[in-house]
């Protein structure tokens, strides 16, 4: 074997160290922002042996699950596909395996209900100026660090105050409060799937629309069943990076994209919401990619909302999103070809208004939840008669 000289050795060593710098070898002094630093995945885990001793009166057998050996069950509602032994509680905290049967613990006991303007969901292309009766139970299949409803999404059903409101009562209350729709919202509606489906069926029979406000983390079968009773949805597209999904939200990107495709195929009106988290989601290149995917797979007509981030819950040491970033992303998305892009949680009036994608004239002026100007004739632009996507009446 050929020997190397000391000088040669030093040169080689120096070269090796230089190459190592490129590969972030000198951890942690080369920590990068965003997805690269800190724990990579915050996905939730099954709560072993955490089920209640006895079922309570609101318990309802799950619609989608598989019975396995040794009385184990696999929940089929969302891509978490929780494998539960008897006595276990699911990741979303709402489902338990009781002696080989999967139960939802949230049926008929919402912990929050309000009458909201539909613009608050946000749904800008669905029955404007109408009111939505909004309900939520506890539970979520994600672990978003910036959750604005963490008090109910990250807790168990028995840990909150709740109302007794079975599907028929929900529909009745919606009617009594003059709401044209029921929104399954706030926490994650997918986790109270059985309650949502039963209520939605009754609502549809009574001429009330059903709105699904969700993270879109749901399996195909339950989604198809839901599409049968759904009128509109607002789905969060939290980012266009699987790494950020895992790090900030405790979920995965692909199932959410699949949900968008299914809703599109099933002809359900939906709008997309992206929260621009500084340092993570405020990446123009990523937004461009996201728009590209939307255009290719869904077309240009589904409204996209860019929301301003404010420090919340555990993600409270970041600044809020500069309004100019949202404005820039709106312009970028429109330049890419998406017809309707809005800016939310921010004082930027233009970003709240609807302009005809053909003649560019103002169709709907929104000041907060108020609509002082409305230039739609049915579903058409009053000026150029272009059909504006959405469900307007």
């Amino acid at each position, binding site marked *: 074997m050929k020997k190397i000289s000391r000088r040669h050795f030093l040169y080689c060593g120096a070269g090796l160290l230089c190459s190592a710098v490129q590969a972030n070898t000198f*951890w*942690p*002094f080369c*920590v990068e*922002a*965003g997805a690269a*630093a*800190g*724990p990579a995945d*915050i996905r939730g885990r099954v709560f072993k042996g955490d089920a209640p001793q006895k079922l309570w009166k609101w318990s309802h057998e799950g619609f989608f699950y598989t019975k396995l050996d040794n009385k184990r069950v696999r929940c089929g509602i969302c891509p978490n596909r929780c494998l539960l032994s008897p006595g276990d509680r699911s990741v979303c905290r709402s489902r338990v395996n009781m002696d080989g049967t999967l139960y939802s613990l949230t049926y008929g006991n919402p*912990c*929050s209900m*309000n*009458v*909201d*303007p539909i*613009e*608050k969901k946000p749904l800008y292309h669905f029955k404007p100026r109408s009111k939505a009766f*909004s309900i*939520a139970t506890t539970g979520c299949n994600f672990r978003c*660090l910036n959750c*604005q*409803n*963490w*008090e*109910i999404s*990250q*807790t168990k059903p028995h840990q*909150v105050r709740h109302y007794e409101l079975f599907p028929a009562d929900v529909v009745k209350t919606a009617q009594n409060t003059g709401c044209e729709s029921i929104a399954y919202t*706030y926490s994650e509606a997918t986790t109270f799937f059985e309650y949502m489906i039963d209520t939605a069926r009754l609502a549809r029979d009574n001429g009330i629309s059903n709105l699904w406000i969700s993270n879109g983390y749901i399996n195909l079968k339950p989604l198809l069943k839901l599409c049968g009773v759904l009128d509109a949805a607002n789905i969060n597209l939290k980012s266009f990076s699987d790494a950020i999904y895992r*790090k*900030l939200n405790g979920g995965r990107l692909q199932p959410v994209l699949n949900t968008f495709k299914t809703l599109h195929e099933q002809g359900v009106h939906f709008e997309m919401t992206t929260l621009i*988290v*500084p*340092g*993570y989601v*405020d990446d123009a290149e990523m937004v461009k990619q996201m728009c590209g995917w939307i255009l290719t797979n869904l077309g240009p007509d589904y409204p996209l909302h860019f929301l301003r981030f*404010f*420090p919340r*819950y*555990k*993600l*409270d*040491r*970041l*600044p*809020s999103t*500069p*309004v*100019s*970033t949202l404005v820039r992303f709106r312009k970028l998305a429109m330049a890419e070809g998406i017809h309707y892009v809005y800016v939310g949680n*921010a*004082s930027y009036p233009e970003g709240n208004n609807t302009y005809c994608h053909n003649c560019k004239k103002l169709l709907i002026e*929104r*000041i*907060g*939840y*108020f609509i002082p100007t409305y230039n739609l004739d049915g579903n058409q632009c009053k000026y150029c008669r272009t059909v504006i996507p959405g469900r307007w009446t």
Partner: protein
Amino acid sequence: MKRKNERAITRVVIATGISSVVTQLLIIREFLAQFQGNEFVIALILFNWLILGGIGTLLARWVTRRLWKATVNRLGWLSFVLAGLPAAQILIIRQFRDVFFIHGSSVGFYPTLAFTFFTIAPYCLVLGFVLPYSLFVIRTENPDYPGTRIYIIDNLGDVSGGALFSFALVFLVTPLQAVFLANLPLVLSTCLLFRVSSRHHPAVYLGTGMTVAILAVGIVLEPASLNPWEGKLVFYGESRYGRIQVQQDRDQFTLFVSGNPLYSNQNLSIAEETIHYPLAQLHQANNILLISAEGGMMVELEKHKPASVDYVELDPQVAEVQFRFGLIKKIPGLKVIHQDGRAYLAGSDKIYDAIIVNLSEPDTFQLNRFFTDRFFALARRHLSGHGVLSFTMKGYDNYLDEPQRRKLSSLYNTVTDYFDNVLLLPGQKIFFLCSSQPLRTDIPALLAKKGIHTRYIRGYYYGNLTHERIERLTALIDPTAPKNRDYSPQLIRLMFMQWFAKFSASPTIFIAVLGILCLIYLMRIRAEEFVLFSTGFTVMGSEILVIFAFQIFFGYIYLQIGMIVTVFLAGLLPGAWFGDRLRYRSKQTLAVADGLLIVLMGLLIIVLKQGGDYLPVAFFLVFGFAISLICGFQFPVALYLRGGDAPAVTRTFSADLIGAACGTLITNVVLIPYCGIIWAAAGLIGLKLCSLIVMVVLHEKN
């Protein structure tokens, strides 16, 4: 030669004391900038510091006996390590924060405990180790050297370090510059130590050079270590109250105080809500008091055309930076007052039409003073007949969780004693509007009537603040919830609960483990050590109580609180000197000192009961000095009774440190929040009574 060595070691011990106290204060500030700055975290950091110091001290004897004989050379190298570690430690804390935790996220109790423990462990263990080790080195040449002397010398360094930081460094330099300056004496005294002991080995020069290089590199790397990931840092300053940074991200400026994004120039909704909710209730708002302000508020205030606006901001740098970066603007009639808001009100005769308190939720004793019965009474006295007091708590979107409900209930019950009408408005913040006049909820209509134009309130108020939401929130108030008082800060306790709930954690495991370890420790120590343990506990506990009480009566006055901290250290010196010189040192002496501590704590209770408003500041200084004097006195007496040999030295030193650690933690997070200030003081008396009983029983047995 022997004397020369002793003198050189003495210089090293003093320099170590200076370095250690400056480092401790800097590390606490660093952790507060990186983690949650609540009382629990502050107590946790101090607890870790003291407990690790105690472990280091205990290790000294074991290591010296079995592994490492005490030599001047080794002491010198340890001192170099000690001088270089703080700079590395601060940089590591900054870097590792985002390695172990997700950038931008807050951290729960157990991860904070683990992170603070492991990052400060190297420094604290070495620090705790060095003090008894120095004594052992001296004793290799002078076996009769008294252990108390090292204790006194160390205290001299501590007092100097505390004063140096609190009254000079904090005003003048950045943290790593402070580390550099505070450790130079240690590097120099260590060089002299090697020189005196005739060691001129090149390694010594190399060690000196390396230590100085580490300290200097710290200064060089400091700006880079503070750079944010989002936007750019356009201002950085260290005020006496904490770290102030301004980040610019495109056209947005965000003011960070101790790592928290506090205010920005683009927070229109908060500015509108904070100003217009209370002022909409008034026909004309002439005189307004604003306790702390944030982006856009002055613009909104100006719309009401007030005759005068008194803006009180404790930290002059915060106000200066807000003006400089356009977060708030100067408006006609504006007067900026740099004082504690409550102290200002107490000393002012001015009557206001509105008092707007724009402070975050009370997670420290200092902030809690703006949410108590006495503050509300004070505010009421300074309001005109139709005047409005407004303050906020953290809001919620769709569900009010239990700790928050209890917090709101406690506040509601407290404030309704002073105001006939209290209106709660839910939203991103929950607004408390308090007045003797009826209050209205149709705020957009009131503003429209006054001709005041808003953007956020006009568009969003009626969708976000429906009558149902307002009524539902009011209905959730529990009329039986205990009131938040100065002496019994209920909110702090509830804040702890909420903090734990947010991270789905419980302190039970920690308390259980700590309790078991404490029990094992207490069962293994001797009576004299228990006296020192309880004294360390009492001194730290009473220091926290005195600072807490001082703030209630006089407000947060930086220099005077710095003086209180200093006298609590300064009394140790003459106390230890006196105890060392006392001829008659017996268990009875210890018992008498215990008795005096009990009397002093009793005196504190009487003073608090009678109301400390009428006391001069000097009372608190004299009290602190007296408490630490007795503590200092007990140390040499206990050490003498224990025999003064190596094991006795390490055990007595560590008993004092471990007691102080427990005192800090338990007083801060258990006694004051759960029992109130009076019962906390009574608890300390109880502990001292136990110590007294132990001494008396043992004395009788002997």
